[in-house]
């Protein structure tokens, strides 16, 4: 043990210098940073890819990997999210709209050289249909059979017309590899089993660290310009932002306004604010009940009154929330979907909009009989149920993102101004969901990420989405309305795009009339990339969309003559500078030590 060494305590500064010097030496010998290597696009991810089995996982990072590794029958066009051919080059639907015939692209090969045929498509879909716990099983819930009359034709028959048929986001996997594997278990053999047909192939997976994908030079859609895409996992968004600043990664998304602001000052970083893919809402307990109609929970009765909910919406100043809470990085909310969520978004006309108007809110409550008590808080009208009960509400805000609690504090003040007493509590979002499903809440803040297809976002406002006896359900705020249910069913079975669009817009209009929630704002998705390393990234959709996704990695190009900031010469200069500083420090330490030793020796003598 070094502690036993006789001279150690006295020579510790010397050891420190040696330690620092060896660290510096290691640094100069350390492998070059990511971007020094040509044609590598490294992307920071904040969520780990959980499983590499496409039948099991739809976490954001796994989906990125699957989208690069595999193909789908149809795809979204990057420019405008319109449906375009994927593995299928053409499709037609029968007169009864229940039989779909897809013609596959010819000459597509798997990464192991075997041809991709209709049998692979049949295998993928039938595997999901026969394994209900598979993650994509809801996408095939209307399927009754999938067959392949020949190698290039796939016929899908459904029990009811299925509007989302062309939006099915299921990676097609090779039957010759997966036929021998248990589709519900983690892939044996790791990345070697991920034989794919997509623009990149997964070649290395280190859980919790990084995922490396190599270019598929024979990709049918044209080989990508980047040789390698690396998804690097960060636990901590600050570390990811710093890694971008330093050039350890080239692209990162999901930044906070503070990180975004700091990065915008860097000359070699370009920022992007994507719009139209998220919303944040204040949800009311409009009368919690299970899907069989049995009432549950302890929601405040006042919130069952549309006038109270309307008054709350009128009391909220959304512009202030966007400016103060989001630092301007977002759009003011109003209808269910953001205006840039095209083509689906519906917006209320000028006479219908419920904009900030606290005086109107007070009038509405006064007229409805909610009189103020001596403490300024309104009470339930004398004629109705629970007469005299104070309008005191619980408001839950998820702890995961700070903007919820910040918005919550504004809401408490604004609702106080119209005579409501709100108690704000921040909770783990998991805990909030449990309370919501049980109906034990009055108000909560939440948010969603929108898919290009709106079906799921509509489904969470149907009677069937309310929890069953086990408490399983996807409802947002227990809305149950006949008109909504009918519209939802009609759009789900409407195969004609234009007619479905109308139904989806009618649905949003009806939802707006019911006031089951207040859409507060549509937060921008904040992203940044190194403009000295990578160019030609694509937004989806082109006007307002996000740069972080498989569509963007495919078009990305390296910047020639990159590695300016962290080049070998710059590195050498810093090493020299630091060695010099260290030498000076070491010299000073030695001088001080020698002098002290002399003085102690003198004292002892």
């Amino acid at each position, binding site marked *: 043990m*070094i*502690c*036993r060494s*006789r*001279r150690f*305590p006295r020579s*510790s500064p010397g050891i420190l210098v040696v330690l620092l010097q060896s660290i510096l030496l*290691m*640094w100069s*010998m*350390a*492998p*070059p940073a*990511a971007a020094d*290597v040509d044609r*590598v696009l490294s992307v920071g991810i904040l969520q*780990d890819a*959980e*499983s590499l*089995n496409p039948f099991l*996982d739809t976490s954001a990072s796994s989906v990125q990997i699957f989208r690069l590794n595999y193909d789908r029958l149809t795809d979204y066009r990057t420019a405008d999210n319109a449906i375009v051919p994927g593995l299928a080059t053409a499709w037609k639907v029968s007169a009864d709209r229940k039989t779909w015939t897809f013609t596959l692209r010819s000459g597509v090969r798997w990464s192991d050289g075997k041809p991709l045929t209709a049998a692979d498509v049949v295998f993928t879909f039938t595997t999901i249909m026969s*394994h*209900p*716990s598979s993650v994509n*099983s*809801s996408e095939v*819930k209307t399927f009754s059979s999938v067959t392949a009359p020949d190698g290039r034709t796939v016929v899908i028959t459904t029990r009811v017309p299925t509007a989302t048929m062309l939006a099915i986001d299921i990676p097609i996997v090779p039957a010759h590899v997966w036929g021998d594997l248990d589709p519900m*278990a983690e892939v044996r053999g790791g990345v070697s089993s991920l034989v794919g047909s997509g623009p990149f192939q997964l070649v290395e997976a*280190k859980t*919790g660290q*990084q995922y490396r994908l190599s270019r598929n030079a024979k990709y049918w859609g044209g080989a990508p310009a980047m040789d390698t895409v*690396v998804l*690097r*996992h*960060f*636990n*901590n968004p*600050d*570390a*990811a932002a*710093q*890694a971008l*600043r*330093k050039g*350890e*990664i080239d692209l990162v998304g999901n930044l906070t306004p503070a990180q975004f602001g700091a990065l915008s000052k860097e000359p070699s970083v370009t920022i992007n604010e994507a719009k139209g893919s998220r919303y944040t809402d204040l949800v009311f307990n409009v009368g919690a009940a299970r899907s069989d109609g049995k009432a549950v929970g302890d929601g405040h009765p006042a919130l069952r009154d549309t006038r109270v909910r309307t008054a709350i919406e009128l009391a909220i100043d959304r512009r202030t929330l966007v400016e103060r809470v989001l630092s301007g990085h977002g759009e003011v909310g109003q209808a269910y979907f953001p205006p840039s969520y095209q083509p689906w978004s519906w917006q209320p006309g000028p006479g219908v909009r419920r904009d900030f108007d606290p005086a109107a809110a007070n009038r509405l409550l006064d007229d409805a009989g909610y009189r103020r008590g001596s403490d300024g808080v309104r009470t339930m009208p004398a004629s109705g149920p629970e007469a005299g009960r104070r309008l005191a509400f619980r408001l839950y805000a998820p702890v995961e993102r700070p903007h919820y609690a910040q918005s919550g504090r504004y809401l408490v003040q604004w609702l106080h101004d119209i005579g409501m007493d709100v108690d704000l509590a921040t909770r*783990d979002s*998991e*805990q909030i969901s*449990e309370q919501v499903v049980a109906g034990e809440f009055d108000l909560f803040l939440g948010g969603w*990420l929108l898919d290009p297809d709106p079906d*799921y976002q509509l*489904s969470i406002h149907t009677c069937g989405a309310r929890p*069953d006896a*086990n*408490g*399983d359900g*996807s409802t947002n705020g227990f809305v149950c309305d006949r008109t909504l249910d009918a519209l939802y069913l009609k759009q789900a079975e409407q195969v004609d795009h234009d007619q479905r669009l109308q139904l989806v817009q009618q649905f949003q209009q009806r939802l707006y009339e019911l006031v089951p929630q207040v859409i507060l704002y549509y937060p921008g998705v904040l992203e940044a990339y190194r403009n000295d390393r990578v160019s030609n990234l694509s937004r989806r959709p082109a006007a307002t969309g996000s740069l972080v996704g498989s569509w963007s990695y495919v078009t990305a190009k390296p910047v020639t003559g990159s590695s300016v900031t962290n080049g070998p010469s710059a590195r050498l200069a*810093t090493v020299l500078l*630091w060695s010099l500083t260290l030498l000076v420090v070491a010299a000073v330490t030695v001088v001080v030590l020698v002098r002290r030793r002399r003085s102690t020796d003198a004292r002892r003598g």
Partner: protein
Amino acid sequence: MRALLVSGIARLAGLLVQLLLVLFLGFLLFRLIPGDPVRAITRGHPTTPAQIAALRQELDLDRPLPVQFGRYVIDAVHGDLGRSVLYRRPVSAVIAERLGPTALLTGVGTGLSVLIGCALGVRAGWRPGSRFDRWSTASALAFWAMPTFWLGLILLVCVGAGVGPIPGLFPVGGMRSVGGAPGLPAAVIDVGWHLVLPCLTLVAVQYGQYHLLIRSSVIAELDQGYLKLSRAKGLRDSQIRRRAWANVAGPTLTLAMLNLGLLVTGAVSVEAVFSWPGLGQLTFQALQVHDLPVLHGTFLVFSAVVIIANSSADLIQTRLDPRLRRELPYWPG
């Protein structure tokens, strides 16, 4: 000899009882957290009722709690820790993958903390009140009082990414570089390079307690007769210190072993800040989706490390300090 055997068996039995308690506690503890694993992993995705039911059955969550506990204990005794809800792989495989990085980080961190704490502590205690003592004790206290994640973030921003004239010297996260050179020596250098900042954070926060403990133990020894005798015999300072060290080493070792167990858990925040792919990171992720099997597994590993470290500290202590071995005649110095 027979007494030794009996005490050994008793110790082993105690160990087993402790481990069983850990199994039981771990099972109950994580079920107290509100949340449902199936709802957590399916949230936000379109699902069908059949899918939810199938997942419940697959993850064994559809049975009554006592049955779940029984199966869990029987499986655990057979070495099967179940399958991760999140990763869908055996928990033992998931944990094994993460054990190495955590052991490396905490091992190197504790080793360096002990070395630095000992070196500075002995020196500071030898001349209490001296300038060296005042400065080193004050800085040890200051570092010890710092929140680990805060110090980590500061180091990450200042030394990792670089601020103003300070260049970004070390990687800001992870264990390997993206474009790492092939070959073992390059890999060792690369990992070592990534280890610097997380390790520095751990050492800075940890070494203080060794420093303070050693310092006070040394001060307590200063007035002992055997030291005065040695001094009277004309021995040099460094030789006298060596004698004092023998008596000081015991408590330090106990603390080091105790900490080794706690450090595995303490590394959670360091791993979170520096994206170190260890057990702390795994636990953090598992908590977010209520991955009960993984939580049970990591809880078991953490507890086992603490239990084993404590027991071995007892054993080594007896070896190290002859006074604790009753068979031998007691003789100070």
